[in-house]
C-alpha cells in the first residue's frame, strides 16, 4: 500500500490467508472452462502446466523444485535458501552482472527463493523477451558455478538479515513458535538458517545440494500468458535439453506432537506491545477434513471482519489492530495458530477472550447464517483469486505440489458446499485444543501478566 493503511490489517491479508489455503475458481466456474490448465509430463520428467492468455503481451512462469528446507539437516540449516540465492550469481557462460543486466535492461524479472517446502523460480517478461528470459532461467537452473567469493558475500548478507529480523517482535515470536512446534521437522528452523549453521555450509555442500535436487523430474513449471503450448515445449527442447533427471522426490512425513499442557514461552523485549502467537499442530492439505477446517477457521478468525476474533477482540473490546487465526497446510503436516498484538497490559484480557472463542466454537454449533456467509465468501471470491496471470501461475504451481489435479476447482466447490454446522462443530472439537498449545509472548515481561 502506498499509504498509511486503513481500518484493516495490512491490505490483502484476508485475501492472502485464503490464497494460502489454495482456494481458487475460474471466472467460468462450473463450465467447460473449469479445467485450470493443461498438464503434461515431458520426457525428462519435468511437469509442464500451461494456460494461454492472450489479452496482455506478457508471460509469467512459476517453477517449483523439490529442493526446499525439507532436504536440509539442522546442522546445515539455510542450505536450501543459500543455494537458491546463489544460482543467479554466475554460470558457466555468464557472470552475475551479465545475467542481471540482460533481464533488467528489458524490464523483466527473474528470481529464485529457497526454504519452505520447495524452491521457487519466477520469471516475468514481456512476451517479446520470452526467449531471452527462458534462456537465462534455464542457465541459472542448470549451470550455476557458485564462486567462493559470492558464497561469502551471500552468507554475510544472510547474517545481516538475521540481525534485522531481531528488530521485529513479530518475527521473533514466529521463530520461537516454529522451533517449539516443529521439533525435529526441518520447519523448526528458520529458512535462512542461523549464524552458526551458515558458517558450517561449504561450497562443496552447495554444489552437491544443487546437483542432487535441481533436477527436471523433481520440478514443475507453470507457464501463463501470451504463449502457446507448442512454443513453450520448443523452448524447453532448446534450452533444457541437457537437463538430466536425478533421484526422484521422496515424501517426508514426521508427525507432530501436541505439548503435554499449555506451554508458555515468554521473551522479554522492552516494547509497548505484547506480540502473541498461540497454536498447535493442525491438518495437512490432503486431509479429508481440510475443507471443513477451512470453513471453521473462517468463522473463528480467518475471515477478517467477518470472523469472531476480529469482531470481539478488535471491534467490541478495542484491544488489537489485527488478530487472525490460520491453519497453515503443508503436504504432510500442518499448523494452527492465532496471532495478535496488544499493549502489554492488555495481554491477559485479550488472551482470555481468545480462549473463550476457541471454547465457544467447540461447544456450540455455528449459526446457519455464519455458515452460509462463510461458504458465500469462500466460493464467491474465487474469481478474484484467478484474475491475473501472475496469480494463476502461482496457483498452478501450488496445485501441482499438493497433487490437487486439474479439476480441483470443481472438487473444491463441491467439498465446501457440502459442509454442515455439524461438520464445523466436529472439526472444531477435533482440531482445536484449548488445553494443549504453545504460547509465545514477546514483549515487556514486567507488564505482561499471563496466568
Amino acid at each position, binding site marked *: *500500500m502506498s499509504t498509511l493503511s486503513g481500518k484493516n490489517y495490512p491490505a490483502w491479508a484476508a485475501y492472502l490467508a485464503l490464497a494460502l489455503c489454495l482456494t481458487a475458481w475460474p471466472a467460468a466456474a462450473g463450465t467447460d472452462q473449469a479445467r485450470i490448465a493443461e498438464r503434461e509430463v515431458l520426457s525428462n520428467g519435468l511437469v509442464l502446466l500451461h494456460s494461454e492468455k492472450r489479452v496482455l503481451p506478457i508471460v509469467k512462469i512459476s517453477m517449483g523444485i523439490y529442493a526446499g528446507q525439507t532436504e536440509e539437516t539442522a546442522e546445515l540449516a539455510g542450505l536450501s535458501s543459500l543455494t537458491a540465492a546463489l544460482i543467479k550469481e554466475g554460470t558457466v557462460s555468464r557472470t552475475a552482472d551479465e545475467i542481471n543486466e540482460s533481464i533488467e535492461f528489458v524490464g523483466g524479472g527473474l528470481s529464485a527463493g529457497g526454504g519452505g517446502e520447495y524452491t521457487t523460480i519466477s520469471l516475468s517478461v514481456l512476451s517479446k523477451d520470452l526467449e531471452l528470459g527462458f534462456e537465462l532461467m534455464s542457465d541459472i537452473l542448470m549451470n550455476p558455478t557458485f564462486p567462493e567469493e559470492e558464497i561469502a558475500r551471500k552468507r554475510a548478507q544472510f547474517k545481516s538479515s538475521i540481525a534485522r529480523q531481531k528488530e521485529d517482535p513479530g518475527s521473533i515470536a514466529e521463530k520461537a513458535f516454529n522451533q517449539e512446534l516443529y521439533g525435529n521437522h526441518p520447519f523448526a528452523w528458520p529458512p535462512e538458517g542461523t549464524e552458526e549453521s551458515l558458517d558450517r555450509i561449504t561450497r562443496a555442500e552447495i554444489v552437491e545440494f544443487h546437483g542432487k535436487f535441481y533436477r527436471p523430474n523433481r520440478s514443475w513449471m507453470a507457464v501463463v500468458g501470451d504463449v502457446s503450448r507448442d512454443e513453450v515445449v520448443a523452448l524447453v527442447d532448446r534450452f533444457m535439453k541437457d537437463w538430466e533427471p536425478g533421484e526422484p522426490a521422496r515424501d517426508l512425513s514426521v508427525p507432530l506432537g501436541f505439548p503435554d499442557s499449555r506451554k508458555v514461552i515468554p521473551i522479554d523485549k522492552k516494547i509497548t506491545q505484547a506480540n502473541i502467537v498461540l497454536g498447535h499442530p493442525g491438518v495437512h492439505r490432503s486431509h479429508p477434513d481440510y475443507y471443513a477446517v477451512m470453513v471453521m477457521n473462517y468463522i473463528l478468525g480467518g475471515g477478517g471482519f467477518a470472523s469472531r476474533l476480529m469482531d470481539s477482540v478488535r471491534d467490541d473490546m478495542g484491544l488489537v489492530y489485527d488478530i487472525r487465526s490460520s491453519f497453515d497446510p503443508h503436504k504432510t503436516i500442518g499448523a494452527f495458530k492465532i496471532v495478535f498484538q496488544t*499493549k502489554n497490559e492488555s495481554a491477559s484480557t485479550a488472551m482470555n477472550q481468545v480462549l473463550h472463542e476457541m471454547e465457544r466454537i467447540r461447544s456450540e454449533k455455528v449459526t446457519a447464517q455464519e455458515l452460509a456467509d462463510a461458504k458465500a465468501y469462500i466460493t464467491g471470491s474465487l474469481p478474484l483469486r484467478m484474475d491475473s496471470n501472475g496469480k494463476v501461475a502461482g496457483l498452478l504451481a501450488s496445485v501441482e505440489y499438493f497433487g490437487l489435479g486439474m479439476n480441483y476447482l470443481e472438487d473444491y466447490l463441491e467439498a465446501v458446499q457440502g459442509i454442515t454446522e455439524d461438520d464445523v462443530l466436529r472439526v472444531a472439537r477435533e482440531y482445536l485444543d484449548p488445553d494443549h498449545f504453545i504460547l509465545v509472548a514477546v514483549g515487556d515481561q514486567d507488564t505482561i501478566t499471563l496466568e
Partner: protein
Amino acid sequence: MMSKIWRNGGFRGFLVAALLLLFQGTAFSAYPVHEETLENGLKVLILENRKASTATFQVWYRVGGVDDPLGRSGISHLLEHMMFKGTEKHGPKTFSQTIKRAGGIDNAFTSKDYTGYFQLMSADRIPISMELESDRMTNLLLIESEVMSERDVVKEERRLRYEDDPQSLVYEEVMAAAFKTHPYHRPVIGWMSDLNSIVPEDLVEHYRTFYTPNNAVIIVVGDVDPEATMKQVRTWFGGLPPGPPLRKAELEEGPQYGERRVTVRKEAQLPYVLTVFKTPALPDRDGYALDVLSSILSEGRTSRLYKALVHEKKVALSAWAGYDGLSNGPGLFYLGGTAALGKTAPELENSLLEEVERIKQTPPSEREIQKAKNQVEAGFIMEQDSIYMQAKTIGAFEMAGGWRLVDQYVDGIRAVTAEDVNRVAQEYLQDNRKTTGILIPQKESEESL
C-alpha cells in the same frame, strides 16, 4: 504517508506502476477513461478492462493528514476507521460482512493528501458497493462508545507500526524535522497525545466538512460497461446533496538554511539512515528527471546503490532511493539504507553520499538512461495485470492534479536526457533541501538509562 513503500525501498515501483498501467499496449495515449461529473459535483472515472470478470469500485475523498486540525493529528485516519461503523440503514459491523458475503474484499487507506475506500469483487456485484458507499457518504453514525473503542484500536496500530519499529520512528522524526510550517510535519496516524484528545464531536465536524459528493471521486476499473455503470452511479449517488465549496488554505513550507539532522537512539540491531530532499512535485518538468535518477540509483540489482553499497563495499544490507512526485505539497526525494552487520551509520551515510556526488559530477551513461525508460515501459504493461493497481494509479494522479497527467508523464520520461539527470541531482540533492535521520542502535540497558 508512503511509509510502507519507501521502507521497503520500492517506492519507485509505485510511481512506475502508477504511470505505466494507464496506457494500453502500443501507443502512449492515455487509457480511454470515461470521465463525467454529476450535478452535485461528484466526479466519476471509469476504465474498462475486460481481461477477467472482476471489477474494483473505489471512492476517494480529497482529505488526508494535511487537513487534520492543530492538536487533532490522526483524525482523518480515525474517521476512515469509523466509516466502517455503520449508518441507520446499514448497522455497525455490516459493511465488510456484506461485501464478503458477495465474495468481495474491501479495505481503505489514508495518506497525507487523500482518503480512499475500495472493494474488489465479481463485476456484476458492483451495485452492492454503490449502495453501501452512497449511504455512508452522507449518513454515517458516529456513536461515542464506538469512537472511543476505535480510538483504542488506532492507538494499537500506532504502537505496532511506529512505536515498536525503530526505522519507522526515524521516518516520523525526519518528516517532523523536514517540515516546519507545512502539515507534512505531522504523521498521518497522529501523535499519541493528539489521539488521546480527539472526541466524537471533532469527527462529526470533520465528516460534515469533507465527506461530500463535491469533494469525492469515484473510480471503477474492470469488466464493466461505462454507460451502464454511469447509470447505476447516477441512481445511487445522483440524489446526494452537495456540500458547501471547500476553501483550503494555501500551504507552503518556508525556506531551509542548511542541512537538518535528527538522531534516534532505540534498541535495534543495525544502523539505519534516511535522508529526504525537498523537490518539486509533478507535473514540474524536473520531476521526470528525478524519477529517472531514482531508477538509476535504485532499480534492481544493476542499480548503482546496490552494486556499490551492497555488492562491492558490503556496507549495506539494503540501499535505495525513491522519488515521490505525486503530491499536493512539495515532492520528496528519498535516499537511505540499512547498514550491514558490523558497519556503522557514518560508513553507510558516506557511501550513500559518494554515489550522490558521483552522479552530480558526471552524467549517467546512455545505457543507464535507456534501461530506466525500458523498465518504465515494461512495468506499465505488466501492471495492467492488476485492476486494483490501475484504479489506484488513476486515483493517485487525480488527487495530485488530474488523471490526465499520466499522458504528460510518459512523454516527460521519454524526454529525459543524461544531462537532465545530472542537472537535477546538482540542483535538488543539496544541503538547503536536506534532512537526515540516523538510527543508532542501543542495547536494551542503554536505552532505559
